[in-house]
């Protein structure tokens, strides 16, 4: 049997080459047939399905298309720092204040560099870039045209030098040169926008003037820096804008528009309305921006809700008469004004939304935010009817938004507030899934808004969700997106307590330390009381004791933190449960040093641990300590110690003294 087999093997070996060639041939011919068959099949398909072939249009890609595609492949790494800090390991924020500090210093460093380059162009004359990159070269920020001419005025306007521009305009008028209408309009725009004050150049060093400096720091604050800037500057009677406006021989609607917008922006609401009447008397028509400004000013010029709404409808009707098409901002300002119209709002806000939709204007997030604000008052408690927000989220599901109104960034945090108020977890997830669509996360706003949003989301999770899911979210958003405040950490502790996962407390303590909340005494105390509340398995007790020692070292390191009796006794209890007698004894000494009195239960505990670990000397010392505190329990302790410990005579005599002492006193 074997021989023929071997024979066959040899045969194969010998013919191996021949075989391979044949195989190749076979394969090649097969391939050919396969393609021809495919073609035939394809033809059949074409015969049977008579669908016309639509030749696709040529696609035009934006120049960032490749980069966008690449960027979409990179997902967020929850363990990494935000990208802007990855360059410099020294700038790795661990707390929210560090985050704020680092990002602001990064920004202001850039601004300062730009300021320096722009103000000292003579040092930056060499152009290394090939081809030329304009934004790397110094911008011209200083005036070059010195002579009195319209060109010089235009230069001052483009450089936004308000006072210099006004000066130049006056000089031009005195010289009798007429300034073209367009330049005048631009000048008025400039003055009205900045309320007759020079805007602060970005990155400029802080001025010595106290008031100015205050304004500067205010401006630097991330939250509403612009608003803060402009609220301080109020429209003054007969300022340059009004003066120039009054001097104009003929006024067109754009001049009116500039003034009205400036007045509304800088708080001169009733003046704006009187100017608007003036405009109407001159038989001019206002533009959409003027109307938007006026509508947003309505709540400030009328007191009663009815009057407010009547004025708004009047303005809208005038818009329609003047054939002005409203835009998104028109309706957003109507809704914003409606927020201050009390009971009327609930009737008219939906109607406004329907009007928008009828006109084909897509609502922005700000629109929805206003409507939510109308229907959900922040103060109200108890179970809200969440139908409206439910419907809204269903409608918005999966939509990607771009910012079209500065108010857009408030939507997500207020929607999450409603979820938190109504304790609706599913709704919260819906809101969050909307945040995760496309670039919607950009609409969470600046870091402050973002932390508000995530804070609400996290508290909602802690309140309603199972602890495992909470911890999953915890690792996902903390600290890469959100630095929780002490309240957030307390929520987490409560969630851990509710679901009985107290064994995780030492890890949470580490996070608390990293987040810089270890100086919040009440938070630390809550942690300690949770740990000391009940007994756990020896391993857990061991880790708790280590954690307690860590807490102790934090207390020791900070003079600002005061030991309270409860936290001292919690730490001692934890150490006793882990049989760390020496450290527990140190804690007892700390009681004395801090003038706190240990409880009787604690001392009894200590004594029993002494007994179980066979430390009679420590027991005697304990009784002595108790006596030093003048505790009423001293005789009982002494009696127990005498009864249960193997003592030397000397120790015995000491103890019996304590045992008898109070009796003597009572006698």
């Amino acid at each position, binding site marked *: 049997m074997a021989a023929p087999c071997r024979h066959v093997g040899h045969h*194969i070996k010998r013919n191996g080459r021949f075989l391979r060639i044949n*195989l190749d041939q076979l394969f090649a011919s097969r391939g050919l047939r396969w393609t021809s068959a495919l073609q035939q099949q394809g033809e059949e398909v074409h015969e049977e399905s008579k669908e016309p072939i639509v*030749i696709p249009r040529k696609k035009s890609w934006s*120049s960032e298309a490749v980069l966008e595609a690449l960027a979409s492949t990179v997902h967020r790494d929850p363990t990494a720092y935000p990208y802007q800090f990855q360059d410099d390991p020294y700038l790795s924020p661990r707390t929210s204040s560090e985050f704020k500090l680092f990002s602001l210093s990064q920004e202001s460093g850039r601004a300062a560099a730009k300021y320096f380059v722009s103000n000292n162009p003579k040092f930056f004359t060499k152009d290394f870039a090939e081809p030329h990159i304009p934004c790397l070269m110094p911008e011209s920020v200083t005036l070059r045209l010195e002579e009195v001419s319209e060109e010089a005025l235009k230069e001052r306007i483009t450089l936004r030098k308000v006072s210099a521009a006004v000066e130049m305009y006056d000089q031009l008028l005195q010289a009798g040169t007429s300034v073209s209408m367009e330049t005048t309009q631009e000048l008025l725009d400039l003055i009205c926008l900045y309320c007759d004050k020079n805007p602060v150049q970005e990155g400029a060093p802080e001025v010595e003037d106290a008031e100015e400096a205050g304004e500067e720091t205010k401006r630097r604050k991330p939250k509403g820096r612009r608003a803060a800037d402009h609220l301080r500057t109020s429209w003054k009677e007969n300022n340059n804008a009004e003066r120039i406006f009054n001097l104009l021989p003929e006024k067109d609607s754009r001049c009116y528009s500039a003034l009205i917008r400036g007045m509304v922006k800088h708080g001169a609401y009733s003046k704006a309305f009187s100017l608007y009447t003036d405009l109407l008397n001159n038989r001019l028509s206002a533009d959409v921006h003027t109307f938007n400004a006026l509508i947003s000013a309505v709540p400030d010029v009328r007191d009663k809700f009815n009057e407010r709404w009547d004025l708004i409808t009047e303005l809208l009707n005038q818009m329609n008469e003047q054939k002005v098409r409203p835009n998104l901002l028109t309706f957003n300002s109507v809704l914003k004004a409606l927020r201050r119209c009390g009971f009327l709002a609930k009737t008219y806000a939906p109607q406004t939304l329907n009007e928008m939709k009828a*006109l084909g204007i897509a609502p922005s997030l700000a629109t929805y935010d206003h409507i939510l604000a109308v229907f959900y008052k922040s103060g109200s408690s108890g179970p809200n009817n969440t139908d409206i927000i439910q419907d809204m989220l269903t409608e918005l599901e999966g939509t990607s938004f771009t910012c079209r109104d500065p108010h857009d960034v408030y939507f997500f945090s207020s929607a999450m507030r409603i979820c938190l108020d109504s304790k609706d977890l599913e709704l919260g997830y819906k809101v969050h899934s909307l945040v995760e669509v496309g670039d919607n996360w950009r609409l969470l706003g600046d870091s402050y808004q973002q932390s508000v949003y995530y804070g609400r989301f996290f508290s909602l999770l802690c309140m309603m969700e199972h602890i495992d899911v909470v911890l999953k979210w915890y690792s996902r958003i903390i600290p890469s997106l959100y630095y929780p405040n002490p309240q957030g950490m307390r929520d987490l502790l409560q969630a851990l307590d509710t679901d009985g996962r107290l064994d995780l407390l030492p890890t949470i303590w580490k996070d608390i330390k990293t987040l810089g909340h270890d100086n919040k005494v009440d938070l630390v105390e809550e942690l300690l009381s949770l740990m000391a509340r009940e007994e756990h398995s020896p391993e857990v007790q061991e880790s708790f004791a280590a954690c307690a020692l860590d807490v102790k070292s934090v207390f020791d390191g900070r003079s600002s933190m005061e030991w309270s009796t409860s936290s001292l006794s919690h730490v001692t209890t934890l150490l006793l449960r882990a049989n760390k007698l020496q450290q527990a004894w140190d804690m007892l000494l700390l009681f004395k040093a801090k003038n706190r009195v240990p409880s009787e239960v604690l001392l009894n505990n200590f004594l029993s641990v002494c007994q179980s670990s066979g430390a009679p000397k420590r027991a005697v010392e304990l009784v002595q300590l108790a006596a030093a505190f003048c505790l009423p329990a001293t005789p009982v302790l002494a009696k127990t110690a005498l009864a249960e410990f193997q003592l030397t005579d000397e120790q015995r005599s000491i103890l019996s003294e304590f045992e008898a002492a109070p009796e003597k006193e009572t006698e």
Partner: protein
Amino acid sequence: MHRLLSRTVVAARNRSLCVYECCVLPAKIDNVSRPFTGVGANTISTCTVRRCEKKDDAIPSNQGEATNVDTETKTTQLQEELLEANDGGSTQQQRNVKAEQVLSKPSQVKTDGAKSGKKSLLDLLGAMKVEVTSKRKLKNLKTKQSFESAVQYKSKSGAMESTISMFQKANVQDSAQSEVLDPDLVAAASAAASTLPNRSRAESELLKQLRQRKTLTEAQKKGDINNLGVLIADMKVGKTGRQNAWPADQIRFDDDGQGYTRDRGITSELANVRKRRNIFPTKRLNIFSPTTDEQRGDSALAKPTLWDMDFANELSLTTNQMPRNGFEEMIQWTKEGKLWHYPINNEIGLENEASVPFNEHVFLEKHLEEGFPRQGPVRHFMELVVAGLSRNPYLTVQQKKEHISWFRDYFHQKEEVLNEADVYLN
């Protein structure tokens, strides 16, 4: 598409390998190699896959004796099996004839083989026959043949009953390809049934089977066509063929890599209910008329005012514009103009020449119209120059023109010399 193709090709290659080994190795197995020459090799390949699967790697390397033994036993097994199946030698021959007839479209057989590689041997034979006979022009011939073969088998002994049923099935299958109402077929089926003991029942079963087969094959055919349509659409036209590919209630796979879309259960249904209902009553303010005027255009055309710039600035300040990764930062830099543009087509960096059409670059003869002779060596030289220039991608059109005009000046300067040499410019 590619994956599918390559998979089938690989499968085919393996199979052919096995077949070839089966044919070449033991010279004794005449039964195998003889009836299945040519396309026959293709068809039998489908049957032998299963048997030769394990040998795939062992045989070509040609290692020890053990392998050889294994091979031989297996091949003999195969041989026996085939012999059993080939008991009715005449039918086999007939089929062979048919196979040769179908030689023009053998790949169909192959694709079928690829599909049914895991079926049992008997099923394979049947299916193979179906495929073979699926050609319309052969329909009549084939049905008759199979009918005959079936009849032949019926006349055989009871020991062959399993084989008979198999061929009945094959018969049924092949006739299923044609119209159910084809009288020939019905006749064939009834004839086949007449040889069985329970005649009427067998006939109705056969016809039922016919109809079932027909619907099945139709469905499969359509499915194939759909697949192919999708493939073609993917290649050229777009995703037109896919729209109704998924039934609404099926779990769908998310394109964006999130995995399976979550089943949201009853809440999603509620949401759908809600979607139909409007949030608020449809009443509106009725101030504006919903006419779409063209007035929107003029605001866009107007130069952005200071207010517009301020508004845009405010928008960018309120949103979070921080880049999340290096690519987003690069996008930012590209927008600021700090970064070289990533090429999105092969005309990137053509800023200077973007408005110049290609013919300006390539057809330069028109610049020879004036200042150069119509014929002669100068003309010949200049044509060569122009031909060279038209292929030069590195010069701008302006530079090319300058180049030509330099020659024009040059030849005019040397006019005397040229005249002496009897070469005239005009």
